[in-house]
C-alpha cells in the first residue's frame, strides 16, 4: 500500500504539526518506506493471537480514594510563560478574540 501526500497532510493535521510543501514530499517518501518495512508483518498469520499492548500486567492500579495535598500552585506556575490572575494566559481561542466567543 502506498501512502499519498494527502494522507500525510491529514496525519500532520491530526498530530498538530505544520509541514511545508517541500517537507510533505520528503515525509511521504520516508513514511512510505517505513510503512513498507512494517508491512512485513503481513506475512505472519496472527489469527487468534491475542494482542499484547502492556508491559507487565493488564489491570490498572488505583490508589486509595483519599484526599491528599496537591502540588503548590505557585510551584506549578514556575514553567508557565504568561499568566494573569492566577491563570495561564494564552491567545484567544476563537479567531475574533473574546467577542467572537
Amino acid at each position, binding site marked *: 500500500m502506498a501512502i499519498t501526500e494527502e494522507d500525510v497532510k491529514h*496525519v500532520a493535521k491530526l498530530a498538530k*504539526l505544520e509541514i511545508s510543501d517541500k517537507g510533505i514530499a520528503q515525509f511521504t517518501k520516508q513514511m512510505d518506506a517505513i510503512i513498507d518495512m512494517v508491512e512485513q508483518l503481513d506475512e505472519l498469520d496472527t489469527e487468534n493471537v491475542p494482542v499484547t499492548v502492556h508491559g507487565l500486567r493488564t489491570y490498572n492500579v488505583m490508589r486509595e480514594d483519599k484526599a491528599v495535598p496537591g502540588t503548590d500552585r505557585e510551584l506549578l506556575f514556575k*514553567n508557565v510563560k504568561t499568566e494573569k490572575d492566577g491563570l495561564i494566559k494564552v491567545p484567544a481561542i476563537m479567531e475574533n478574540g473574546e467577542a467572537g466567543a
Partner: protein
Amino acid sequence: MNITNYTVEELHDMLVKKEVTAQEVVKAVFARINETEEKIGAFITLTEEEALEQARKVDEEGINPINVLSGIPIGIKDNIITDGTRTTAASKILEDFIPIYDATVTKKIKEATMIPVGKLNMDEFAMGGSTETSYYKKTRNPWNLDKVPGGSSGGSAAAVAAGQIPVSLGTDTGGSIRQPAAFTGIVGMKPTYGRVSRFGLIAFGSSLDQIGPFTRTVKDNALVLNAISGHDANDSMSYEGAVPDFTAGIEAGVKGMKIGVPTEYLNEKGLEVGVKEAVLKAIETFKSLGAIVEEVSLPHSKYGVPAYYIIASSEASSNLQRFDGVRYGYRSTEAKTLEEVFVKSRTEGFGMEVKRRIMLGTFSLSSGFYDAHFKKAGQTRTLIRQDFDNVFKEYDLILGPTTPTTAFGIGEQIDDPIAMYLSDILTVPVNLAGVPAISIPCGFSNDLPVGLQLIGKHFDEQTIYKAAYAFEQATDFHKEKPNL
C-alpha cells in the same frame, strides 16, 4: 587523583579509608570533564557548584561504610527529571524547562547520597540510535571521535567510557542503554520492565521504557541497580515483588548454567564478521567456565523491528501530545490563536526524527489503519514474547551480540531512517518481551568495542549479573580504555 582509573567499589574503599574526600572525587570528575569534554560532548548541563556543595555535606556527615554509593559521582540522562536542574530531553521544546520535583530514580540516588554532576546528552526524546538527533550537540565515541557513541543514551555511555564519571543513568526503550554500552565498551543494563520506577522519566514508549545503569564493571552495575530498583506507587506498572541484592552470589560462576544462543542472532545477515568472531569466542569462554551453551531459536526475531516501530511510535505520538506550548516548554512567538500555540510550538519545537515518529504513530493509530498496524504489531509482540518464554523453559540465559555492527560513523546513517532502525534488530525483541538484558564488552572489531548481550527471564537480573561477572573475571576487555 585520576578518576578514570577507579571503579565504584574502589572509590568507596578509598573514601572509607579517608585516602580521598568526596570533594576531591568531585573535583577530579570536573578536572577530567574539563580535559575531555570538548572532544566528547557528553553533557548538556553541568552542575559543578551543586555537586561540590553536596560533596561537602557528604564529607561532613562522613562516609557510611555500608553504603557503597555514598559520595560517588553520577551523571543523569537528560530525559530523567531533576528538581531545580534544567531537563531538556535534548529537545528545543524543553530548552528552558526546570522540573519542580525529582524523578523517583533521582530521589533514590540522592537518598543513597550519590552526587549528581550533570545531565547527559541523548537523541531528542530518546528517539534515535546515535545521539545525533539532539538539538544541542553531537556526542563523540571516545574510542574514535569520528564515530557515534550510539544512542539514545549516547552521552551517558560516552561519559563513563571516557572516564569522566564512574556511573550514569540511561533509559532503554528499544536498545538505548545496551547499544551505546556496546559501542563504547562498557556495561549497560536494561532491567525487567517494572523493576525500576518510570515516575519522572519523560515518556517515550510507555510499555517499553526502562531506566538502567551504565558502569565500567559488572559489580558496579549491580550495586547501582540495587539502589534504583523497587516498587513505587507513582508508577502503575511498578513491580510489587521484593528486590534481591543483585550482588549476592555474583561470584558463584556459571558451572552447569544453560545458555541458549539464538540461531537468528548469529546468522543475522547484517552481522559484522568481527562482531560474530568476538561472540563466538565469548561462547567458548562460557563453555570453558562450565556453562552448557546450545543453539536455540527465536523464530519471530525479524519481526521485532517493524512491530517495535509501530508500538513505540504510537505510544510516543500519544505521550508527546502534552507538549503544546501551554503549561511549560517552548511557546511559539508567532502564534495568534490557541490552535496556533499548539501547532506552531510543536512544529518549531520538535526535530525531524521526533516528527517522523509522531507522524508514524498517529498514522498507525488512525481509523482505517489501526487493525493493520497497531493491532497487528500487538499480536506480533505476543508471538515474540512466547519465543522467549519457550526458550526460558529450558535455558537460564540467552546470549548473542548486542548490535550487528560496531559503532558507525557520525553522519553515516542519519539520513536513512530505515538503516538506523535496523541496527536495533537484536535489542528491540527484549523490550517487546519486557525481559532484562545486559551488554558487556567482549572484544574488538576494527579497533572498536564489541558488545555481548545476555538476556534473562523476567525479574531474574541476578542470573545475568552472575554470568556477566564470570565472563568479566575471565577476560580483560573491561580493562581496555580509550586513548583520549
